[in-house]
């Protein structure tokens, strides 16, 4: 996907990394070959996702979307953040206890599906809207703020 703003491109790159990792998780679990190291790596990445990435979007991007009349999209994405955080808490706790626990399978599959679906909506609605909403100066400020976060 081609985006005009730096912040859109940066978020898009993170989305691509998220999809690649959770796609691998989904595939190994579907093949019946759970990989504890991969599940631990996914937990580490998830922690980054639900803190830095989500918090930046919630503090800096969703309010701008809502102010531009896109409150419907930001509300939906916020709901999804909440659902992903809830699922992530259970997953991370279980990975820390035992990354080979079979009980991780449904949690990991649920998270993979939630993350994919969430990325789909952000790629379809959030990033194109940001391209239109942000001017160059604001884009640079946001990009710098995200890099420093």
């Amino acid at each position, binding site marked *: 996907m081609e985006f005009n703003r730096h912040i859109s491109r940066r978020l898009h790159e993170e989305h691509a990394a998220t999809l690649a990792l959770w*796609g691998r998780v989904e595939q190994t679990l579907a093949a019946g070959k759970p990989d504890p190291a991969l599940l631990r790596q996914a937990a580490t990445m998830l922690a980054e996702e639900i803190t830095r990435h989500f918090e930046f979007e919630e503090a800096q991007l969703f309010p701008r979307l809502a102010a531009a009349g896109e*409150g419907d999209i930001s509300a939906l994405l916020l709901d999804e953040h*909440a659902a992903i955080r809830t699922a992530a808490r259970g997953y991370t706790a279980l990975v820390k206890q035992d990354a080979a626990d079979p009980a991780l399978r449904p949690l990991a599959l*649920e998270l993979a599906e939630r993350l994919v679906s969430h990325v789909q909506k952000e*790629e379809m609605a959030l990033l194109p809207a940001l391209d239109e909403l942000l001017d160059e100066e604001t884009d640079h400020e946001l990009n710098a703020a995200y890099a420093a976060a």
Partner: protein
Amino acid sequence: MLPGAARSRLLPMSAPFRYFGAAAAFQVAAWALLLVFSHEILSFEIGLGPVFAALHLVTLGVLAMAAIGATLQLLPVATRQPVRALWAVKLVWWLLVPGTALFAWAAATYRPLVMGPSAMLVVVAFLLYGVLLSKNLLGARGMKLVVAHGWAALACLVALAATGLAMVGRYEHGWAIDHIALRQAHLVLATYGFMGLLAFGLSGFLLPMLAVASPPAAAITRGVLWIAVAALLLGASGFVLPAVALGLVAVALHVGSLERSLRARLRPALGPSFALIRVSWACLAASLVLGALMELGIAPPGAPLAFGVLLVPGWLLTFLLGVLQRILPFLASVHASTSAHGTPIISALTPAALLRLHQVLHLAALALLLAAAFAGEPLPAFAGAAAGLAGAAAFAAFVTFVILKVRHGIQPPHQPATA
């Protein structure tokens, strides 16, 4: 979370789903009619009767119905422009459903005098939808190429309604018009025009979205649109061979560019619905080739029926069913999202086994009808109609499942996803 009314680009769930529900019901009715009168399938050429009625149950009741529901919900996402007149969305449905049912009944029972008023109901529904669509397209803020496809489809819809009314005038009042030319224009405008252009336009953003991929290059999509419009103008004017040649170029570019996008997708699994979409593309190309062979007079026996099967259930219906398999659970999941209960996962709204069964039955119906057409045998026609009816019933069960799941609330923890 903001209350539902604040989600301005998202219609209330009942608005699009009433169209999807009606489409599922009309599909069952169409295949049931074909099954009961399967002995008439092989001899069908043109004129009123049950097969003609079944054809229009599919084109008006399933294809147009679902296309209206889908565009009214999906176009606002592409155009960043909400549909403001919810009453009009509901009124279109209330005109189109009885209009289609009455038209099909009148056609099946050879009552041309009833077809006039029922066709008027359908035309008024289309005009009202045309106003809704044009208002949305006029205020569009994004996805210029989707919008351009929307305008081209709208122009086809207006011409389609005019040719349809003229043909009803011929049946009802014996108007002296070139019926064969008008019928050909009506067919081209309805299938390759209105429905085909909507399918091409929405594919450009919907299929990449489902696969999380980049849309095809704008220059290619723009080229496809221009070539397709030129092919439609030629085809509707009776210049079949040049229309087919341009149509094949448009299809090759459209499918090639989408396949290239899908290969670079971020989501590894495409899902089984893409098999239906690929079959529909093959049927579209095959319908064009067969149309050219018929024009050249070198088509095999049974070609007119095979052409109809490839074009309507093969290309348009198969494409629609493939897309609906994906977007119904997606839309339902968005509608069911609340801050109290979260967003249900899509697999909780996707009865995978039922959809696999539907896919097998639908594809079997297509294969059997094509076999019946080329072999001239009534038994595969009967079996094809039976498989189609069973597939339509499975699809109706899927739509009912999704609606009931959302209506009765899905509480977390959700069922585990099946990868």
